[in-house]
């Protein structure tokens, strides 16, 4: 176990990511950790990752993490919930990793586009900047829009605008509107 105290959800994610790699499950880190990679460094109580996984297999994965000594909670989304299922993994310090079993209208290539980033000598997969901004436009909260805007401004490489528009439009009109406002700023 890499986490040795509270506030280390990012380290708990390293343990989780290692297990996902062993299980050959594609994943991409999203949320505040991805925001930090893409330029906006901020604290969070939990780490989040998106999985390429079926809900039955997520149930099996829950048992695996429970056997490893973590507390787990598997929640299913309602029919209209954009997240079909979420597995929360918590350690004894209350560090927490949320694993999302996909996201409605997500581009399936999101996993192949993800980036490899070294973190404490471990390679983790982090969602690409375009996909990160698209998801933030979809989420649409105040902090989400701030994260998206800062990811747009902070990147070293130019954004692939066509890709960004394409993946954002998959999430619907409101997400596309948020993006256009950000692009125009």
């Amino acid at each position, binding site marked *: 176990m890499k986490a040795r105290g509270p506030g280390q959800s990012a380290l708990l994610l390293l343990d989780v990511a290692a297990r996902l790699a062993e299980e050959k499950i594609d994943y991409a880190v999203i949320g505040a950790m991805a925001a930090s990679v893409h330029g906006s460094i901020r604290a969070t109580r939990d780490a989040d990752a998106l999985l390429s996984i079926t809900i039955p297999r997520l149930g099996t994965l829950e048992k695996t993490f429970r056997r490893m000594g973590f507390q787990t909670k598997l929640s299913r989304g309602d029919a209209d919930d954009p997240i079909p299922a979420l597995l929360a993994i918590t350690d004894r310090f209350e560090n927490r990793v949320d694993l999302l079993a996909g996201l409605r209208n997500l581009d399936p290539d999101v996993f192949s586009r993800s980036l490899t980033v070294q973190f404490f000598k471990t390679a983790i997969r982090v969602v690409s900047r375009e996909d990160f901004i698209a998801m933030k436009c979809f989420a649409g909260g105040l902090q989400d829009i701030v994260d998206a805007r800062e990811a747009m401004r902070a990147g070293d490489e130019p954004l692939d605008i066509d890709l960004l528009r394409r993946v954002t439009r998959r999430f619907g009109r409101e997400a596309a509107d948020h993006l256009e406002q950000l692009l*125009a700023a």
Partner: protein
Amino acid sequence: MSAPEIATVRALRSDVALQIARHIKRSNQSQVDAARQLGVPQPTLSKIMRNQVETLSLELLLRIAVRARLSVILQTGNDPAEAGAYVSGVEVAEPLRQKSRVAEAAREELLDSARRLSPEQRLEAHLRHSELVTSLNAVGRKGPVAARRKGETGR
């Protein structure tokens, strides 16, 4: 998008931008004043004035045209007799959103400092930040209890 779709959107984008640019030139306003009045950033308006609008959406350009009180007429259909035409009404300009330049500059400085870090360093900074905030939260939760135990007021 197919080639005709791309060509149509590109042509409409360019035309709407041209009309906005003409309107601003005729108004003899500076770009800064016009941008403020239309509720768009000045660099966006600059792109429109130069007709470099490939990164701007047609929807945004239409919104700006409406804010500038330009009439927008869109006729769709093969037979002119059957094609309906949309004619925009005169809309009241959207309320202006004043941004603080000082706050923006401070924000930009923070982003610049993050830009100078590698992704790995940013993740380490994220971890330290999260540890610190969690510690502060813990102190906040424990503080009054600890103070009461010691018979202090906590102030």
